């Protein structure tokens, strides 16, 4: 890791949110604390706070995603920001304009924040390196690299059920190799002090040297789930079978699919998470997905609070004329 962290400003405040890697425990905990405050906003008569009034948030999506875009949009609107949704599918028609051209066009429209989803790992870092000083970038998923807000809403969900991170055993099951959620979760869990992080997958779905990220590797589900407090199931993409990474969905489910029976070896109060959308009967059985151990729907609603927290934090790091002045006091 280079000493320079593009996510932080000179005062060490969160300026862009690109990855859970390289951020300290205090910043991650603050995100969770803010999210706790924002969680109540949705229950009020007026589901808005005026923090980002007059600011423009651009959802810049180079990859289609209804769920993530919707929660970011709702989060921005609950902060009173104006939201612009731009979907740039990777179609041939758009090839002429470079990513830089697109960014500069949007900058000229005086936007304040880009929420970026892109198919290439490192896209959010690249965009953060290109935008003007006063623009903030939030990574809404880049390639197989990072999906930090998803990881933080998972941390939020874990903390609501199990307030002390240190003694937890957490298992992440499935396509780790192609999962930006898994990478961001692993970093966040490590930073928050979780002592036992496990990844469970067939060898073809595990990146080489994954153990260097501070995880224990299991190829057997029953072994890996032994006494765990938290399970994250990852979505299995169909092309893994087409590309000869796996033989069939059936065999995958029979080896790595989460069923009530398999849940038996975990702690009795285990929680089951899934970043969605769920493939029922492929990575998870409906009985588990809809069962009492599942917190999958809570994750979705926590997603809004987390995204509000992150947006408010990065926007709050705007260059201040008189730092520390207490204009709101009295």
């Amino acid at each position: 890791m280079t000493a320079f962290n593009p996510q932080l400003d000179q005062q060490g405040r969160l300026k862009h949110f690109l990855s859970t890697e390289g951020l300290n425990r205090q910043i991650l905990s603050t995100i969770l604390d803010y999210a706790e405050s924002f969680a109540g906003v949705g229950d009020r008569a007026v589901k808005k706070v005026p923090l980002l009034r007059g600011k423009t948030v651009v959802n810049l999506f180079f990859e289609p995603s209804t769920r993530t875009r919707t929660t970011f949009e709702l989060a921005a609107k609950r902060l009173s920001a104006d939201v612009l949704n731009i979907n740039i599918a990777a179609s041939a028609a758009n090839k002429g304009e470079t990513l830089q051209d697109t960014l500069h066009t949007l900058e000229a429209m005086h936007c304040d924040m880009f929420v970026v989803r892109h198919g290439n790992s490192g896209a959010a870092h690249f965009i953060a390196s290109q935008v003007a000083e006063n623009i903030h970038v939030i990574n809404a998923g880049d390639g197989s690299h990072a999906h930090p807000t998803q990881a933080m809403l998972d941390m939020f969900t874990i903390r609501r059920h199990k307030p002390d991170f240190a003694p937890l055993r957490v298992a992440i099951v499935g396509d780790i190799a192609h999962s930006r959620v898994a990478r961001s979760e692993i970093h966040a869990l490590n930073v928050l002090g979780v002592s036992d992080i496990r990844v469970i997958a067939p060898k073809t779905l595990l990146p080489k040297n994954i153990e260097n990220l501070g995880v224990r590797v299991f190829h057997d589900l029953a072994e890996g789930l032994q006494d765990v407090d938290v399970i994250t199931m990852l979505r299995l993409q169909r092309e893994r079978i087409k590309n000869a990474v796996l033989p069939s969905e059936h065999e995958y489910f029979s080896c790595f699919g989460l069923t009530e029976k398999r849940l038996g070896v975990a702690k009795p109060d285990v929680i089951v998470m899934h970043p969605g959308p769920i493939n029922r009967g492929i990575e998870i059985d409906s009985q588990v997905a809809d069962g009492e151990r599942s917190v999958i729907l809570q994750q979705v609603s926590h997603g809004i609070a987390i995204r509000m927290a992150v947006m408010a934090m990065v926007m709050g790091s705007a260059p201040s004329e008189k730092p520390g002045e207490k204009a709101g006091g009295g």
Partner: protein
Amino acid sequence: MRIKINNGHVICPATRVDGRGDVYIADGKIISVIDPMEGFTAELELTLNGQYVCPGIVDLSVHLREPGFEHKATIASESEAAARSGVTSLVCPPDTWPVIDTPAVVELIHQRQYRVDKTRIYPLGALTKGLAGEQLTEMAALKQAGCIGFSNACRPIVNTEALRRALEYAAGFAVPVFISPEDSYLKNNGVMHEGQISARLGLPGIPETAETTAISRALLLIEQTGVTAHFCRLSSARGVAMIKEAKQQGLPVTADVGICHLYLTEIDVDGFNSQCHLLPPLRTDRDKHALLDGLRSGAIDAVCSDHQPHDEDAKAAPFGATEPGASTLEVLAPLMFNLADTHGFSLERILRALTCQPAAIAGLDAGALEPGAKADLFIFDTNRQWTVKADELTSAGKNTPFDNWEMNGKTSHTILNGKVVYEDP
């Protein structure tokens, strides 16, 4: 022009010269090295203070980008950069557009070269038409036009039968085939070394086996076809070991490494540094040391710049969407001389890998300072310190991974064919 270089430290591995003295040049040829010549009248005298006088560098891979990619660089711009570095002969791969698969393209390159006249350019002909890996090119005509060898550049021939036929046919022309060992299936969509950094960055990895299985396949076909083969840009420890073993078995193979791979590793890619997006990829520290050891032991014969100038847009994108390659001509000499200080290499070994050995691989009459030889040489001054500034590179490609690196030494003069083509102010 008659030139006398006074009081240099002449190092020429080909002729085993290593000592202080003068060099005499006339009519484009070297007249005398160290042996004093009474009555020599020089039109130009360069008086040195023990700076190194070396045979001109023979660079086995410089992408000139012309014809076809003039928005990246041109023969004129890159010849200028070559002269500044002390490269007096360079081999350009055939992946221009059009591809060097007809004599017309070779002629075009030569015409441009004569007009610029700052370095000698030796094209490699395409092994297959359009580098498509299917039909053979007219190798006889290409050789006749001036191609010094054949290659499929960085476009591996997937079909093993086609590779066998290409090697077999090329074997009849007594020129080497340059092979960039890469198994395209194993490389797949990879953009960096498959290892701990790719695992973290979520970038698709290129396993070491993408190189080693390709070397292994090629070695067996080389044995079968009897072709003289040169392996371009080794990147892995295993690859070096395989070449070493093949040499011990007496196979007619040689190998080179790009300068970046002797200095950088996968760790330099961290932070999605697209300037370190190279092909073959930068691998581990262990691999880097194995490449250095291979150079020391002779398993690796030559070091080239693997110069790949790019326009700004080529590197300004998310990592996986950027083009691989680095602009390296201007750092080749200083980084090589630096190996003496940092890794205890002898200057003789360093210059061998830059001059006579690559000349022998490419079958060039170059790389030696001896009476009667072409007067291609450069003077290197280890006292001239400078800092690499991407924007100030002479090459049209500003894509350097070495931006802001301190360099201990610089080429002060380059003489091509008895004429000074570059002089550091």
